[in-house]
């Protein structure tokens, strides 16, 4: 399928390999996307790139700067790599309580 070391020099300028991921949507993003969960293929390297790609496609109203992000049920950094097989959640401004 692909090489886990795709961040090493050989791949830096090459297209990253395609990854299969799940994206779960909550709250305003769920409504804007019109679904709870989707499985997608992506070449994005980072979570930030992935959000921008999806946001362009689905016209999400929220800037990435207002969101947090998780991968496999742990908070993640926007610069973290998109991992094949992972589940990703973009987290709108919270409003508990």
């Amino acid at each position, binding site marked *: 399928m692909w090489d886990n070391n795709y961040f090493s020099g050989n791949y830096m300028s090459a297209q990253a390999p395609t990854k299969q991921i799940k994206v779960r949507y909550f709250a305003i993003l769920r409504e804007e996307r019109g679904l709870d969960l989707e499985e997608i293929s992506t070449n994005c390297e980072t979570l930030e790139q992935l959000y921008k790609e999806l946001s362009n496609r689905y016209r999400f109203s929220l800037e990435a700067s207002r969101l947090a992000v998780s991968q496999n049920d742990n908070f993640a950094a926007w610069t973290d790599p998109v991992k094949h097989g992972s589940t990703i959640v973009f*987290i709108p401004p919270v409003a508990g309580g």
Partner: protein
Amino acid sequence: MSDLDFQFEICQNKINPECLAEKLRSDKSLGGIVVFEGRVRNQSEGKKVLKLEYEAYKALAIQEGVKILDEARAKHPEIKSLICVHAEGELEPGELAVFVGAASAHRDEAFLGCRYVIEAVKHRLPIWKKETFETGEAHWVNCSEHHGAACN
């Protein structure tokens, strides 16, 4: 969490504050109990509120909630019992959205621990609320231009 006196939950049923308070009262070495109840307000932004819908990213919310309780316990080691329960689903005005209760030998740590937990819960838990006004208008709180805050 393994310790029975530390409890974090996301609750789809009605929260029973009296039942939770009874747990806090069970250890007679703890003289100070502080409870915060966050209830759905019947008005927000000057408009009448019809309902709130809470949606939680449950796996992460529970993990983060447990972490918040751990932090509170580390900061305030005198606290021997700490409970936080957050509602999920549709709530009407007056209904309980979040319960936080802390018990310790003396009052200072119970106040500080309770406050620490509710502040962290509000700022960090991946939970959202959609506010519907009596006019039919609805919006996700904090996600739109007009920031609602129907609850405490």
